[in-house]
Structures are given as structure tokens and as C-alpha cells.
């Protein structure tokens, strides 16, 4: 029996990045998680999480309201673990290096780097994760169909795989983003269009061997339908291979998003993704503050390294 590969530090890092990316407004924000103003409860950080406009106590910001609260008042506010927001500028902290209060420093407008890093994980995780999920579902399905029912379907899929493989990811992202609009949806669809081919190739290759097994012939003879055969019997065996492909595709997505933002294109520039932070920091490379480019670069490189490490471990776990 194959044992589960221990994913270790790399898996923990990926899990942390995924959680941080998905829950960013709840982890680092200058809006409180929940607050009671004059007896009424409100949840501004959760509103920001789902993209609604966040309620404010009155015309002032939350910090000012908290500062002007009289002692002994029944009003309270629970701040997120990191109480600074990614957009709160502070001119007095312009370009400051790492300090105790702001461990990753502040950028040229005085915004806290930790909060910007946390929020910058969101576009990366949503884009990469969404593309891998969409491409994975389609790719596994098409590859499974081609592997089970051979013939012209298999031939068509092989030609389609060749066609998709001939297109470079970055070029297609650039051209698609320029001519079809620079929205995250377009980038997600283009990435999914190129990722499905990896999944399809892997699933088809494995199923070509698996479909020759005795139990498949037995199941077919017993009248088990193709769908049930796939979902209940064959695809669960390919968990490891699909996970490896997903890890490599996610790494490609992270690096492609960083490259796109570095060239100044793509929606990451507006939402402040890691690639956009790196682009801003690269101007500082020549004699500027080192903390502006090192932390986003480290985030990108460590995430991609973790993906490759997880894939390598899964692969050596499969081989045993």
C-alpha cells in the first residue's frame, strides 16, 4: 500500500499561502472584524471580504472613532490580527526600513508592507487556484474520455494537445490581456486553456495503462457505466499524478502572474499583487531600499519552490 507522502514545510507553506490569500481582509486590515457602535453590531472586515463597501461608524475612520471613544463606553471593536491596512498611507513612514512595529518596512507612500504582502496574495491565489481548478476539471475529464474510449476521440485530443502546447503561456496572456481586456477573468480563462492540456495528457497516459487491467474489463462486463467507472474506480487512483500536475501548474500561474505584473500589464497592477509590488520595488533595486523588492520576491520564489518541492515529494512517494 502506498503511504501518503509527508509534505512537510513545503506543504505547510502552500496551505498558509492559500489561507492567507483567501482570508486576506480578515487577517490584515484597518477595519475591525466586528464592532458595536451605539449598541448596533457591524462586521466591516467581513464586508470587505465579500467585496461589499465596508460600513464606517460615522464620517470618520475607525481609528479616529476608536481614539475619540470615552472610557467606560459599551462600544467595542475587535481588530484583525494585523491591525494595519494595505491602503493606509502614512507620510511620516515613507520608505522606512523594517522596524519593530512594521517588520517588513513601508513603501514609498508609507503603506505597511506586511499588509500589502498579505493582500497581494489574494489575486495570486484566486487567479492561480481558479485556473488550476478549471483547467484540472476539464483536463481530467477530456483525458479520461480519451483514455477510456480510444479511437477518433483520442486522435482528436492528441492533436488538440499538440496545438495547445505550441502556444507559449506568457505570449498568450499578454496578447489576450491586451486585446480581450485586462480583467482577471480573461487571464484566468487563458491560463485554464493552457493548463487543461497538462492534466489531459497525464490522465490519458495513465488511463491507457489502467484501462487494460482485468478489473476494468470485469466492471464493464458487469454493466458498470463509464461515468461510474471513471469517478468511483479509475480517477481516485490518479490522485497523486493529478496533484503533481496541479502543483506544477500553480507554480506556473504564480510566476506568469508575476511576469505579467512586472511588465506593467494585467489586473495585478491595480490590486497590488506580489508581482506589482515587485515591479515597484525593482525601481528601488539600483541604490534604493532593499525591503521593497526582497519581500515580494521572496514570497513569489518561496511559493514556487514549495509547489515544486511538493510535486517532487509526491512523485517520489508514487514511485515507491
Amino acid at each position, binding site marked *: 500500500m502506498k503511504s501518503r507522502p509527508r509534505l512537510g514545510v513545503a506543504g505547510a507553506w502552500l496551505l498558509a499561502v492559500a489561507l492567507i490569500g483567501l482570508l486576506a481582509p480578515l487577517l490584515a486590515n484597518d477595519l475591525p472584524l466586528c464592532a458595536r457602535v451605539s449598541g448596533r453590531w457591524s462586521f466591516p472586515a467581513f464586508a470587505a471580504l465579500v467585496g461589499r463597501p465596508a460600513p464606517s461608524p460615522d464620517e470618520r475612520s475607525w481609528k479616529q472613532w476608536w481614539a475619540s471613544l470615552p472610557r467606560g463606553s459599551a462600544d467595542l471593536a475587535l481588530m484583525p490580527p494585523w491591525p494595519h491596512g494595505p491602503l493606509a498611507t502614512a507620510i511620516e513612514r515613507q520608505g522606512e526600513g523594517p522596524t519593530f512595529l512594521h517588520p517588513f518596512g513601508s513603501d514609498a507612500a508609507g503603506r505597511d508592507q506586511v499588509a500589502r504582502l498579505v493582500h497581494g496574495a489574494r489575486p495570486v491565489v484566486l487567479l492561480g487556484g481558479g485556473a488550476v481548478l478549471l483547467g484540472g476539471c476539464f483536463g481530467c475529464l477530456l483525458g479520461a474520455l480519451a483514455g477510456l474510449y480510444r479511437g477518433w476521440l483520442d486522435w482528436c485530443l492528441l*492533436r*488538440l494537445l*499538440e*496545438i495547445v*502546447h*505550441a*502556444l*507559449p*503561456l*506568457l*505570449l*498568450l496572456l*499578454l*496578447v489576450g*490581456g*491586451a*486585446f*480581450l*481586456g*485586462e480583467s482577471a477573468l480573461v487571464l484566468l480563462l487563458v491560463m485554464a486553456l493552457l493548463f487543461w492540456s497538462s492534466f489531459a495528457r497525464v490522465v490519458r497516459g495513465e488511463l491507457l495503462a489502467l484501462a487494460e487491467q482485468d478489473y476494468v474489463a470485469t466492471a464493464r462486463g458487469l454493466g458498470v457505466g463509464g461515468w461510474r467507472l471513471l469517478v468511483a474506480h479509475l480517477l481516485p487512483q490518479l490522485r497523486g499524478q493529478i496533484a503533481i500536475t496541479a502543483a506544477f501548474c500553480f*507554480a506556473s500561474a504564480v*510566476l506568469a502572474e*508575476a*511576469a505579467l505584473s*512586472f*511588465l506593467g*500589464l494585467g489586473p495585478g497592477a491595480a490590486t497590488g499583487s506580489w508581482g506589482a509590488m*515587485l515591479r515597484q520595488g*525593482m525601481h528601488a*533595486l*539600483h*541604490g534604493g531600499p532593499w525591503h521593497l523588492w526582497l519581500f515580494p*520576491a521572496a514570497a*513569489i*520564489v*518561496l*511559493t*514556487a*519552490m514549495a*509547489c*515544486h*518541492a511538493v510535486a*517532487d515529494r509526491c*512523485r517520489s512517494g508514487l514511485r515507491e
Partner: protein
Amino acid sequence: MRGTPSLLPWLLRRLATLACCLLGVTFAVFAIFEYAPVDRAAIAVARQQADGNFPDQQARDRALQQLRRSPGQVGSSTEPLPQRYLQWLGSALPCWPARPDPATQRAWQRLAAALPRSLLLATLALGLALAVGVLAGTRLAFASGKPGERAASGLLLWLAAMPEFLLGSLAIFWLGPARLGLLPGAGLASPGAEAWPWPLRWLDLLAHLLLPVLVLASGPLVLIVRFLRDSLPRSAAAPFARQWRALGVGEDFLRARLLRNAAAPLATLAGSLLPMLVGGSILVENLFALDGMGHLALTAVLELDRPLAMAILLVSASASLLALLLSDLMHRWLDPRVRLLS
């Protein structure tokens, strides 16, 4: 030789498949660009606004209305799709009877001027990646348990995860004129190099090409080393290898033969690396200010030059498919089993 199937039918079949795939990919790309449900006028205006062309909102609205009223300016046309597709495809062939429109002609001229530099860069990068990758891959494959192996694997992991633009920027910063001054940071020739004697000119060209080729080769290098590291130990455990060892054959001789066995799949891998080289060349050429196809791609995207973008896509797709065909040919030549069993 009697019994060996000849090359020509196989080659003709593959060429026909290649032509089908090429038509398929170009038609798909063309149709997506023509029929995507996007507001082309709004995209063009948004790009112009990002460039700062509009002093106020009214100028922007006026430009938007003007573009909406005359759809020909943003590239829409009223002819049916197959006719437009054939016209565009025909503009790529020099012997097509119909003359393409001036924008398409200009696009092909720019591309033809930029292609040789990109080819030079890509060929050098692939050659370097193969040479260094085979050496490093064989050392790493047979070094399990040795002290340097974990460090080398860690270095490989880091190189795989490092974005090319970051690697290039750091290399330019540390090795270039800003810090150590060892290598130039941009361009293909130093200023005034045309007046130098040709040995110095070649050295100058080499110095300018070293960093871009190294950065571009990092992606394929990682894939080649990984492939050898995974496949060579497996073939070293094959029955024939055990027999040779038992017969007293030297380890080096055995490893050379194992590498010869791995050459065929390596050729297939090398042929599939072309899309990675094209994508990498976009970043590398823009970073090192080389006027190649990658730089032209970014220009096409920034200027919203549709004929140029489609021409670049066509050229890179055909180059990738051609590289796959060549690598299949190499595989067939290197591995007799493919010839005899097909």
C-alpha cells in the same frame, strides 16, 4: 534494408498533421480575436487613457463615441469570417496573389527584421542548456547519497522557482555597470564597436550575449536536469545494466551507454522546450534591451497592433510545431525501436 519501413510516408503523414494543427491553432486564435464578446472601443480608449491621452472625461467620452461609430478603426470588419481568415493567412505567404493591407505588411517586415536575433538567442540558450544540463544531470543522477547532492537539488529547486526577470535584474545589478562592472547590461554591442577590429567585435558580442543567454537557458536547464535525474537511475536498475556490472564493465562506460539510451526521449523533450524559450525571450529581451521577437511582442501589445500580435502568434506556433516535428525525427533516428515497430 529489407523490413525497415521507409521514412517518407511517415514524414508526409506528420507534415500533413502539422499543417492541420497549424491551421487549427491559427483559426482558433483568429476566431477568438474576432468573435470575443468584448467592447473593443472601450479597451482601446482605456489603453489610451492609461497613456494619458485624455485631459478630461469629456475628451474620453468623445473618443469612445467616435470609435464606436466607425468600427473599422478598432479592427472590426464586415466581411465573413472564413474570407478574412484566408486573407490574413495569405498575407503570411510571399506568393499570395492578393496584396495585404499596409498594417499587415509593416507587421511582417518588422517581424522579419527582429527574428534573426531571437533565433540566435534561442539557439544559443538551448545549446547551453543541453550541454550544461546533460553534464549536471548525469552527475546529479548518480550522486544520490553523496554530500553535494542535497545542495545541488536545493539549487535546482531554487533555479526552477526563480522568475527569469528577477534573475536577470539581479544579474544586471550585481554583474553589470552598477556594481562590479564585469558585463554590459544592455544591447548587443558597445557604442562605437563598429570601428573595432573583428576579434574585439566578436568578444564584445559574446560579452553582451552572455547574460541574456544564461538567463534564458535557466528554464530549459532545470527541465533537462530534472528529466535526467529522474530517468537515468531508473534505467541504471534495468536488467542489462546489472548484467554488465556483473560482467565487470566499468561504471563510466555503463553511464555513457545509459546516456545514449536517454538521448531519444531527451530529443523529444528538447523539441518541446520551444514555447518556454519564446515566453522567456519576451522577458529577457525586454530586460536586456535586445530588439528581438519578444521585444516586438511587448511593443505590439502596448501599441495594440493587432496584425503584429497575430503575426507573432503565428510564427511562434509554427516554430513550436516544427520543433516538435524535428524532435520526433531525431527521436526516430536515435531510437531504432520506433522505426522498426511503427
